């Protein structure tokens, strides 16, 4: 049964069972312990009545347990649907329904997380609360499960994960990734980063997000180690742990590096063990990359580009070229992947001509879950159409120039303005709403909302903010609200977002 993601972990566990695989605060787990936890999770979920390729929604922050749950779901031939830890009950209910999930695994008691959502199987630390679950399995049941190797027939073509990502049309879409997709991407990343079993990465990025997950999978695959630290809110404490644990690697999105370089002791700290740093999750301002390079003396910085639809990674800039002459580029394709620039008809463009960035390779998704229409828009005979615009130079290095769709990039995550607008309108308090992005020093962009009240006299902005807060995860909450009598329109009747962006910038300057 080769060709699966969990086989990579099992092989490392067979090679060095007693080596520590994951550190988390004062705790740690060896490869054998992670593999055993995965075996027990697989057995538990199967015993609870789940069948091959059933979807399991997982709401857990990064932890030793979440690692065991992920590999356990894969071992059982189930499909892992990991979602943002701070998802609201309304978002959770959407994910469960959209994925047709038959089970949900929680790190916390379900009361605050699930509301009254119906789910056949629920795994959580404490009782089912008010959630409607047909079968409730407490975490403690894991202790009673036989600790033997779990064997299920799983092949590289089976679906391993559905990862939700914002769609331009509103609600998030489920990106369908097979074992073969994730495994090939994992091995390609291992190869260009030159990861070895003596590597040890500091993981602050969430594992529900493909970039975070790629840290886990690549390090487990080569028998290297992952240090989980969920407290980047205090970057100095993370830097301290990087020194104490002698980590060799670190990974971040642009906001991570903005915080590290602008408001932490990172620029003044030397971490002798550090060998490489990776940056992905959106374009970073070249000035910040330059400062980061200056501060990373003797450390390789890998600037990378990818998409959830590509399992994670598509391109990277070789560190020597980044320092020498390719700052601002997203680099060259990773091993086994072809990246091309094409016009809307799929014709390949010449160097320096701007077009659609497209990609083909074993890492490209199967499509969007139950959404043939969006799938046919994204997957063309010439590969995945990323939605990013750009060009290649004479040497084949790629450069991004913009994005085709109306999308925000908040922190490392794409967010659809329409999803936020829809939540505002759902309140029944406004006539219309528009959300635009405002550049932000740390998050790249933050959402701003413009709303026209249905009834000016009774309109209550605080009530509207509360309503939206109950619908959307915190990073999607508008940072600033403007209440207006009308919104500017284009001749077509559509809201003129350019004008709103302009207005927002002016107001910010005055405020």
């Amino acid at each position, binding site marked *: 049964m080769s060709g699966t993601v969990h086989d990579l972990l099992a092989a490392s566990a067979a090679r060095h069972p007693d080596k520590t695989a994951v550190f988390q605060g004062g705790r740690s787990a060896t490869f054998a312990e992670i593999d055993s936890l995965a075996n027990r999770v697989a057995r538990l979920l199967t015993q609870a009545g789940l069948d091959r390729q059933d979807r399991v929604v997982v709401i857990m922050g990064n932890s030793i347990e979440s690692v065991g749950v992920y590999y356990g779901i894969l071992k059982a031939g189930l499909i892992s649907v990991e979602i943002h830890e701070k998802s609201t009950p309304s978002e959770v209910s959407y994910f469960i329904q959209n994925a047709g999930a038959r089970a949900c695994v929680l790190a916390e008691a379900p009361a*605050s997380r699930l509301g009254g959502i119906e789910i056949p199987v629920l795994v959580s630390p404490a009782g089912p609360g008010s959630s409607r679950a047909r079968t409730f399995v407490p975490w403690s049941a894991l202790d009673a499960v036989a600790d033997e190797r779990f064997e299920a027939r799983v092949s590289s073509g089976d679906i391993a994960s559905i990862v939700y990502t914002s769609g331009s049309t509103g609600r998030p879409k489920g990106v369908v990734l097979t074992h073969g997709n994730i495994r090939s991407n994992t091995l390609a990343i291992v190869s260009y980063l030159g990861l070895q079993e003596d590597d040890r990465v500091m993981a602050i990025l969430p594992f529900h997000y493909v970039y975070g997950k790629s840290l886990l999978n690549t390090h487990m695959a080569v028998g290297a180690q992952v240090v989980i630290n969920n407290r980047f809110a205090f970057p100095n404490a993370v830097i301290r742990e990087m020194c104490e644990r002698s980590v060799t690697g670190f990974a971040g999105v642009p*906001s991570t590096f903005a915080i590290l370089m602008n408001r932490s002791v990172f620029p003044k700290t030397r971490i002798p063990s550090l060998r490489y740093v990776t940056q992905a999750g959106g374009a970073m301002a070249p000035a910040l990359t330059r400062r980061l390079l200056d501060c990373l003396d003797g450390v390789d910085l890998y600037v990378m580009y990818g998409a959830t639809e590509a399992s994670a990674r598509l391109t990277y800039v070789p560190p020597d070229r980044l320092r020498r002459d390719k700052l601002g580029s997203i680099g060259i394709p990773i091993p086994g992947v072809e990246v091309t620039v094409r016009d809307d008809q799929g014709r390949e463009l010449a160097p320096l001509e701007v077009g659609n960035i497209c990609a083909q390779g074993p890492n490209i998704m199967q499509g969007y879950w139950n959404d043939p229409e969006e799938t046919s828009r994204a997957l063309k005979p010439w590969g995945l159409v990323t939605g990013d615009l750009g060009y290649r130079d004479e040497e084949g290095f790629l450069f991004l120039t913009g994005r085709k769709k109306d999308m925000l990039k908040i922190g490392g995550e794409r967010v659809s303005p329409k999803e936020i607008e829809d939540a505002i309108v759902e309140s029944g308090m406004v006539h219309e709403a528009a959300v635009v992005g405002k550049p932000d020093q740390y998050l790249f962009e933050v959402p701003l909302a413009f709303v026209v009240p249905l009834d000016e006299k009774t309109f209550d902005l605080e009530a509207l903010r509360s309503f939206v807060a109950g619908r959307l995860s915190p990073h999607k909450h508008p940072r600033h609200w403007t209440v207006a*009598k009308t919104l500017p329109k284009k001749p077509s009747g559509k809201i003129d977002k350019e004008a709103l962006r302009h207005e927002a910038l002016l*107001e910010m300057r005055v*405020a």
Partner: protein
Amino acid sequence: MTAIVKSDRNIERPTIEGVAMTDLAEKITAYIRENFIAGRSDAVLEPDTSLIEAGIIDSTGVLELVEYLESTFGIKIEDEELVPENLETISNILRFLASKGVGA
């Protein structure tokens, strides 16, 4: 387009149950409630609630809080001082401010 109101943030009365709060504690509690937990009725905010573990503040939230403390109290907070001991809870923040001569 005419803006009628901007998002002037209402100052709610702070509600840390059973603790007689100083004006300073009230002010900071109100700021956190208003900016980080507006609309989340389930959020508990007590003097020793970890703002991070309770999911109230994330990494950029800490920086917003620091900017607020700097501009409101006219103090300078060094990068070295951005540690849990100074900012993890409202109690820690008050202690930290006192060490900077605020509210002492």
